[in-house]
């Protein structure tokens, strides 16, 4: 259809400019990518016509490194996978190792691992939710979430000595027992704050008109597609699929815990946000129950192949000293030819470790099934045809952790 009046030349030029496609590089060092990743966008005006992604900026070759590190050293590799919920990675790695070695972890260690995993999960969800709000343009909730994350990191530091790279698990248990006063600190300082912050987030955002307009229906994916893309974790549950490794294949102490698996309906940014909010409440419930059932006893398996001897033996007997030396210098040896896979529910979904053992103290091959990798692969599907301003909202709600993306 022709315009009723002839347009001026300036107007024609402007229209031509709009019709022209523009390439926009988003990242690899953009504050809203929350990590080093690059998104190459072809824009038509403000609409995303084509989206391509490039990852690998944080690729450190962790799987190759693992072939040269002992099973206990590799916990440091797991530290660097998802650096926002490190303790869950530690558990995932050593749970796979324990399956390989055929070791049962004592009950106190499994309960402590459960508690620390859930604290790490809450910290990770806070890292997702707060910046997600900031990217949309709401700054207030960020301070609530960041304060809670700080409390969670304080607790992790209190137990493990490190805020982020905890490296606290060992083959057969934990590096140490929790210090005295841990339970009181969690119950008095942390848990009430978790419920309070979740209520604040609910009241600040769930009925906020601007937040609803920016997130409802944005970046939605159907159940079938989400499963096909290999999604797991909160992103998949937001689509309405109640798959949670903690329930489907109970590990640690999750079999004894009473908690719900929140699911969304539409699989959009809004659902992903509030599934995470509800998951934090459930994590707090799990922590409460785990403390009420926390058994006494050792935190390391009674297995001389893998666990360090008592200090009295090391200083008092030559056998104890040799034993200590062997484990520290060479590390435990896995059975030859064994292959195992074990997975835990990471903050972003199923985090699985495959280990192939050649009978030495180092894995022959280690492979990580990282949840973020599969979640991010669906990004072009989520944002193509939508506005550029939706992209930061979607990427933040997927909780893309570059360390998990690149390995």
């Amino acid at each position, binding site marked *: 259809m022709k315009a009723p009046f002839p347009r001026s030349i300036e107007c024609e030029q402007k229209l031509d400019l709009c019709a022209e496609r523009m390439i926009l590089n988003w990242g690899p060092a953009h504050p809203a990518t929350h990590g080093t990743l690059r998104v190459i966008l072809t824009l038509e005006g403000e609409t995303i016509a084509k989206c391509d992604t490039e990852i*690998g900026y944080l690729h450190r070759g962790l799987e190759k490194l693992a072939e040269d590190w002992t099973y206990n050293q590799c916990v440091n590799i797991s530290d660097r996978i998802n650096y926002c919920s490190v303790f869950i990675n530690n558990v995932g790695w050593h749970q796979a190792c324990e399956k390989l070695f055929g070791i049962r972890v004592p009950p106190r260690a499994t309960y402590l691992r459960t508690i620390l995993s859930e604290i790490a999960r809450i910290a990770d969800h806070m890292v997702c939710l707060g910046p997600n709000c900031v990217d949309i343009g709401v700054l207030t909730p960020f301070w609530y979430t960041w304060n809670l994350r700080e409390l969670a990191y304080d607790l992790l530091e209190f137990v493990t000595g490190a805020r982020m790279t905890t490296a606290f698990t060992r083959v057969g248990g934990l590096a140490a027992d929790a210090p005295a006063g841990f339970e009181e600190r969690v119950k008095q300082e942390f848990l009430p704050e978790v419920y309070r912050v979740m209520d604040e987030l609910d009241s600040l955002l769930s009925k906020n008109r601007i937040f609803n307009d920016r997130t409802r229906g944005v970046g939605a994916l159907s159940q079938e597609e989400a499963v096909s893309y290999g999604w797991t974790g909160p992103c998949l549950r937001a689509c309405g699929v109640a798959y949670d490794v903690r329930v489907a294949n109970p590990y640690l102490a999750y079999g004894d815990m009473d908690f719900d698996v929140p699911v969304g309906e539409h699989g959009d940014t809004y659902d992903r946000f509030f599934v995470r909010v509800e998951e934090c409440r459930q994590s707090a419930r799990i922590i409460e129950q785990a403390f009420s059932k926390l058994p006494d006893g050792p935190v390391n398996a009674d297995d001389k192949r893998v666990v360090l001897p008592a200090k009295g033996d090391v200083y008092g007997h030559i056998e104890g000293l040799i034993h200590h030396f062997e484990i520290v210098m060479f590390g435990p040896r896995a059975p030859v030819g064994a*292959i195992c896979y074990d997975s835990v529910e990471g903050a972003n979904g199923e985090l699985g470790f495959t280990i192939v053992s050649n009978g030495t103290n180092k894995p022959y091959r280690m492979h990580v099934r990282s949840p973020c990798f599969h979640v991010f692969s669906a990004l072009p599907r989520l944002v193509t045809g939508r506005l550029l301003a939706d992209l930061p909202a979607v990427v933040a709600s997927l909780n893309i952790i570059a360390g998990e993306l690149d390995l």
Partner: protein
Amino acid sequence: MNRQETSVVERLKSALGGKIQDVYEDGRGVVVRVELSAVPDTLEALRSDASTPFNLLADVTAVDWSRWSEETGMKPPPARFSLYYNLYSISATTRLFIEAWLEDGQAAPSATPFYASADWAERTVFDMFGIRFSGHPDLRRIYMPDDFEYSPLRKEFPRRGVDPQDFPQE
């Protein structure tokens, strides 16, 4: 194997016949070894299985066995590489691994027609091991730069990496 896994394997055997080479259990669970050319049929049969649909392809990965007998003294494996498909049925909470062996230079059939997650997973295997996937719509390197000449997870690639001077200069 529990009852569910047994019945899945039985149905798979009747659908694929002699293409299944072995069924065994290890630390991963049930592993079904098939011929390389039968991988698409196996994936399709498992994905459309009536009672336990394996709708989640959690992972695709490979292992380079070229140093295996040298390091362990065990008998050499059937081929240089093995591919593993990690399948999960969300509704039946059952996991199954598909294993296929291939030689260096041999191309594997792509699983992208059946699972969207195979796209990036196969790109990783291609990048890290140099295994090609025939029928993959977009087989590019995923982590390493395009002008990088090596496949880092192959056993002959040095663990300390290659000298930066070896990189092609512009």
